[in-house]
């Protein structure tokens, strides 16, 4: 109560004025509260409810409270394996995207003029704003059996017949996911590197540090928030990814998101909702654990 008392009000009339003021100030947020509070949180809340219900033989949702849907997730080996594989894929893509983006952004910030930095950064962002679907689709013609890579390899005489090494498997999913994740990683890393004072690296070296020591002990700790932001922005979407496996992954490249979609296709709503909730809970947990380091604006507000 007392925390709502406005500064500069007299104690006698403070509580009332304070309250009226805070209501007056909050009304512009009502439409947003409807969208986020009712539509978004409501959706999530009902998904939790449905995940404890049952889908009967006629594909109707029945309010028959049980935890079977969750038990299934954690006991059926295929489901657990697919979830585990999704986590491994997400981790591998995160490592690859960061390993690609870190030297790239380091070069950009350290050795390229401000004007060109902006141009190159824009060139990185532009594909990021074009259709996700089309960016994935673009790879079909490259990785496919009659795709560019196969044509090139055959043209060079390295292979005689088209290889299926690059298509409809985990490798193709991996390549495409690194491709679509790269801009997230680059933006997040650029934002922190830009704030880093490179004079410190010189200072460290003047004091006798080897370049690798300077990087590890001076640069790395200071850009850690950017690295964490990049990791989250790459890792999290992959946990719910289903499009890339559909377009370039085939049956071998299936991720947990595809299982969820299949449940809904098959009208197994309660089961699908439980899987979705497990994923959502996992993601929310990650976001809460890393919330202090997460700089959403660095990635989002740059467009």
């Amino acid at each position: 109560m007392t925390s709502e008392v406005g500064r500069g009000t007299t104690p006698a009339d403070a509580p009332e004025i304070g309250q009226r003021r805070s209501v007056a100030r909050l009304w512009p947020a009502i439409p947003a509260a409807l969208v986020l509070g009712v539509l978004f949180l409501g959706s999530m809340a009902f998904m939790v409810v449905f995940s404890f219900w049952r889908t009967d033989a006629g594909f109707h949702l029945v309010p028959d409270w049980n935890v079977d849907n969750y038990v299934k997730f954690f006991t059926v080996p295929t489901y657990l394996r697919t979830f585990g594989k999704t986590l491994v894929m997400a981790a591998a893509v995160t490592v690859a995207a960061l390993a690609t983006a870190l030297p790239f952004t380091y070069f950009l910030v350290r050795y390229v003029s401000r004007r060109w930095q902006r141009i190159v950064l824009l060139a990185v962002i532009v594909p990021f704003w074009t259709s996700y679907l089309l960016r994935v689709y673009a790879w079909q013609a490259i990785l496919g059996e009659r795709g560019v890579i196969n044509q090139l390899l055959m043209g060079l005489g390295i292979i005689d017949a088209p290889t299926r090494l690059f298509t409809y498997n985990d490798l193709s999913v991996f390549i495409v996911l690194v491709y679509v994740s790269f801009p997230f990683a680059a933006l997040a890393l650029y934002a922190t590197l830009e704030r880093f004072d490179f004079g410190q690296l010189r200072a460290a070296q003047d004091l006798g540090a080897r370049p690798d020591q300077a990087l590890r002990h001076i640069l790395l700790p200071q850009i850690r928030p950017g690295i964490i932001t990049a990791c989250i922005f790459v890792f999290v979407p992959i946990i719910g990814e289903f499009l890339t496996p559909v377009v370039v992954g085939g049956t071998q490249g299936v991720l947990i998101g595809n299982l969820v979609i299949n449940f809904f296709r098959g009208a197994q709503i309660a089961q699908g909702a439980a899987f979705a909730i497990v994923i959502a809970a996992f993601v929310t947990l990650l976001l809460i654990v890393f919330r202090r380091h997460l700089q959403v604006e660095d990635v989002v507000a740059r467009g």
Partner: protein
Amino acid sequence: MSWPVARGIDPIETMPVSPHARATRRVLWLWAVIVMAFLYVPIVLLIIFSFNEPASPGLPITGLTLDWYEDALTNRLLLDAVKNSIFVAVAVSILATIIGTMAAFPLVRGRIRYPGAARIVATLPIMLPGMLLGIGILLFLRRVLDLELSLLTVVAGHLVFTVPFVILIVAAQLQGFDRKLEWAAADLGAEPRQAARHIILPLIWPSILAGALISFTLSIDEFVITFFTVGPQLTLPTYIYTQIKFGVTPAVNAIATLLLLGTLLMFGLGIVLLSVGRRVRRRDAT
């Protein structure tokens, strides 16, 4: 492709410290070129194949043609899909901009009881995988509210992730806003409404505009949430999806090329408007 070294950068700054510095820099430069190629080769190929004669997109290039563009542009389904997408994107960008901008004020200035929670609720829709949002909203609209799916449900679905974008962008600018200007206006007798209209809005409109452009682009490209919340209508992304899944012809590449061009134009327009805004503000400031 070479990036000129910055003029005006202190030569000491770039002076090699370690004996390997020059080599390191070369390697990094090469890496940057490879990365840019990685980013753009797929897009360039996508465009090239839209002009290629054979009926399945790929190498070799046997002859150039504009047939796929004619195919795409005379397709009724596609034109309807484009119309639907534009309707949704315009509605979403107008609504999201108004709703998000309004919400940014109390979020930045009001004493909200749980700022941390509000922040998480506002960032979750951006961070959560689209599939979860799509499924959740679909269940809510169909099973709880018992609504028929239509383009309007798509608009509702898109608002869930575009409103947070607008809030974040406008809030970021409001945070840097010098409140003394408002107090000065109030001292000079301006009502809060007048101060908002004549002092705040003219100063923060670049971020509002950026919010509108971003929500338009996000909405017109959004596939996953549309996929779940749309009725029998097709939008551009869902049309492209059916094309990719069932029988790809370079007509998809033609659509992609046109869409890319459209996005570039929007992007260019946004940048020009933003820099005009900045120039106006600078002129006003002096």
